C-alpha cells in the first residue's frame, strides 16, 4: 500500500439546498518520501483534496489511507490526535498566532505531546534554526516579513516530526525571492529529512521543485 492512497474519493458540498460536487471518484497514490505538486485551475478542488488527505475534512464517500491509517473511518477526536502525530500543515496565509512569539508559535503543536517545557523549547528552537530563523525566536509575527512568517509556519509544521507535510499555495502570497527560499526549504526537507510533501500551487515554476506534478480538473485527475 502506498504512503498516501486515495481511492474512489467523492466530496459533495451542501450549500443551502444546493449540492456542489467537488471531487468525483478520484484516486491517487503517493509514495513515501515523494514531493508532489498538485496543480489545477481555481475551483478545481485542490484545497478540498489536501484537506481530506490532512484529515481536517471528511469525504462523502471513498477511502483515504495515510501512513497506514484509514482516516475516513476516524471520529473527530481520533482525527485530531492523528493529525497532531501525522500531519504538518502549511497555509497560504501562514496563520500564525499574532499574540505569540515565533518560538511560542512553533512550540504550540508540542503542547499536545508529553514533554516538559525545556524539551519543548529545545525542539522548537531547533526547528526555527533549521528554517534559518534562529535569531528571531522572540519576534512576534508582525515583526517578521511574509517570507519569514511562512518559514516560522514551516517550522511549526515540522516541529512534531510529522510523517506528511501538506502545503496549500505556500508561496502564493510571497514575492519571488521569499517564495524561492520557501521552495528550497521544502526541497531540503524532502531530500534531507525524507518528508513526504504534497504542495498545492498555481505556479509552474514552484511545481518544478517537486518530483511529480498532478493535475486536477473539475474534480478528476487529468495527468
Amino acid at each position, binding site marked *: 500500500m502506498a504512503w498516501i492512497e486515495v481511492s474512489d474519493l467523492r466530496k459533495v458540498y451542501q450549500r443551502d439546498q444546493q449540492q456542489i460536487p467537488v471531487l468525483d471518484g478520484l484516486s491517487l497514490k503517493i509514495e513515501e518520501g515523494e514531493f508532489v505538486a498538485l496543480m489545477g485551475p481555481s475551483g478545481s478542488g485542490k484545497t478540498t483534496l489536501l484537506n481530506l488527505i490532512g484529515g481536517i475534512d471528511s469525504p462523502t464517500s471513498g477511502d483515504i489511507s495515510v501512513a497506514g491509517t484509514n482516516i475516513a473511518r476516524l471520529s473527530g477526536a481520533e482525527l*485530531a490526535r492523528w493529525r*497532531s502525530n501525522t500531519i504538518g500543515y502549511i497555509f497560504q*496565509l501562514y496563520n500564525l498566532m499574532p499574540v505569540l512569539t515565533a518560538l*511560542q508559535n512553533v512550540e*504550540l503543536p508540542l503542547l499536545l505531546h508529553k514533554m516538559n517545557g525545556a524539551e519543548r523549547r529545545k525542539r522548537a528552537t531547533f526547528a526555527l534554526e533549521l528554517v534559518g530563523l534562529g535569531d528571531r525566536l522572540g519576534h512576534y509575527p508582525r515583526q517578521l516579513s511574509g517570507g519569514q512568517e511562512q518559514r516560522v509556519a514551516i517550522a511549526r509544521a515540522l516541529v512534531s516530526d510529522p510523517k506528511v507535510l501538506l502545503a496549500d499555495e505556500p508561496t502564493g502570497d510571497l514575492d519571488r525571492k521569499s517564495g524561492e527560499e520557501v521552495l528550497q526549504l521544502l526541497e531540503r526537507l524532502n531530500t534531507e529529512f525524507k518528508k513526504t510533501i504534497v504542495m498545492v500551487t498555481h505556479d509552474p515554476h514552484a511545481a518544478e521543485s517537486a518530483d511529480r506534478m498532478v493535475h486536477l480538473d473539475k474534480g478528476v485527475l487529468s495527468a
Partner: protein
Amino acid sequence: MFHLVLVNLGRNPLRTLLTLASVTLALFLFCALSGVLDTLQESIKVGSETRLVTRNKVSLIFPMPKSYMQRLQAVDGVKRVAISNWFGGSDPANPRDFFAQFAVDENYIPIYSSDVDIVEWSQLPAGVPAPAGVDPKLAVFETEQTACVVGIKLMEKRGWKLGQQVTVRGTIYPGDWTFTIRGVYKAKKKSFDESSLLFHFSYLEQKGMGGSGQVGIYVLQLADPSRASAVASAIDGMFQTSAPSTRTESEQAFQAGFVSMYGNLPFVLRLVGLAIVFSILLIAANTMMVSMRERTSEFAVLKTLGFTDGAVFGMVVAEAAVITVGGGTIGALAAKFGIEKSGFNMLGFLPSMTVYWSTVFVGIGIALVIGAVSGLIPALQASRLRIVDALRRVE
C-alpha cells in the same frame, strides 16, 4: 496552555480591562447591597424581649411628655424605664461624616449592661466616693452635666481621647454643644452599634428644651420576658385616651419599623442587585462573542494542529472565567474591606455594616457563573467550528 489564555486576554488590554472593571463594579455593588440587607436583618435580631420600646403612636418623630415616665414605671412587670432622645447633631468641623448622638438618662446604660461594656472611664479624684447606686465606672459621667460616653469605633475613627472635649452642632436643638468624653463603651454583641455618642438627657432638657421635657422614646426593662406582650398592651391601653397615645413594641419590632421607614428598601435592593448582575452578564457575554469571532481562523488553526474541540472549548471558557472571576474577586473584596472601613451605619440606627465572608464567596461564585455562562456560547461556537469553513472565511 494557560499561558495561551493569558496572552489572548492581553491582545486587547483595553477591552479586557473594561470588561473586568464592569464585573468588578457589579460584584462590588452586589456585595455592598447584600451587606446592607444582612446588616438590616442582623439589627432586627439585636432586640430582646427583655426590653420594650414605647413611642408616640403617630410616629417615631413626635415626642411624648416626660410625665409619662412615672406612669410607665408604675406598670406591673416593668422593672426600669430609661429615656432616649435622638439629638441629630453634626460635627461642625466634619459635617458630612455623620455619627449618631442620643440624649439618655441615668437608667439607659444600666439597662443595656448585658450588651455593652464600659472599657475606659475617667477616675474620680482620690478620696471622693462614688455616688450611691451608680456604677463606679460611670461615676464621673453621672456627676458631670456636660459629660458623654462614646462608642469605641467612633473614638478610633476620630482619634478621640478620654477626657477630651468634643463639639457637636445641633440641628434640631440649635447651638454648639460641647461634651467631655468621660467613658468609652464597647459592644459585647457584634450587632450593637459602637459609633454613637450618649450624653445626659437632663442637659438636653435644660439647654435645648427650655426645661420642659419632651421625650423621644422610652426603653422599658421587663421583669419577666414572657409577659412582654401583656405589658405592651397594658401600657398602650393606659395611654389610649391620653394625648398623645403610645405604641409599645419589642425592641426588635421597633427596629424593624425603623428599617421599614425606608420603604420597601430590602426588596428593591435585591431587585437592583439582580438587575446589575444580569446586565453585566449580557455585557460580558457580548464582549466574549465579539472577541471570539475575531479569532475564528485561529481556532481553526489550533484544530488543524490537533487541538480537540474540547480543548478549544476549555480555552474560551477559561478566558471568560479569568475576566469575570478576577473582576468579581476584586469587587467583592473591595466591598468587604471598603465598606467595613468606611463605618457606614445608616445614621447610627444600625450597627456598622458588615459584608460577610459568605457574601464575598457567593459573589465570587456568581462571577464564576457569569464567566461560565458568558463564555459558554462563544466556547460552543468555537468548539463546533468546522475547520474548512473557518479557513475559507479568511481566504
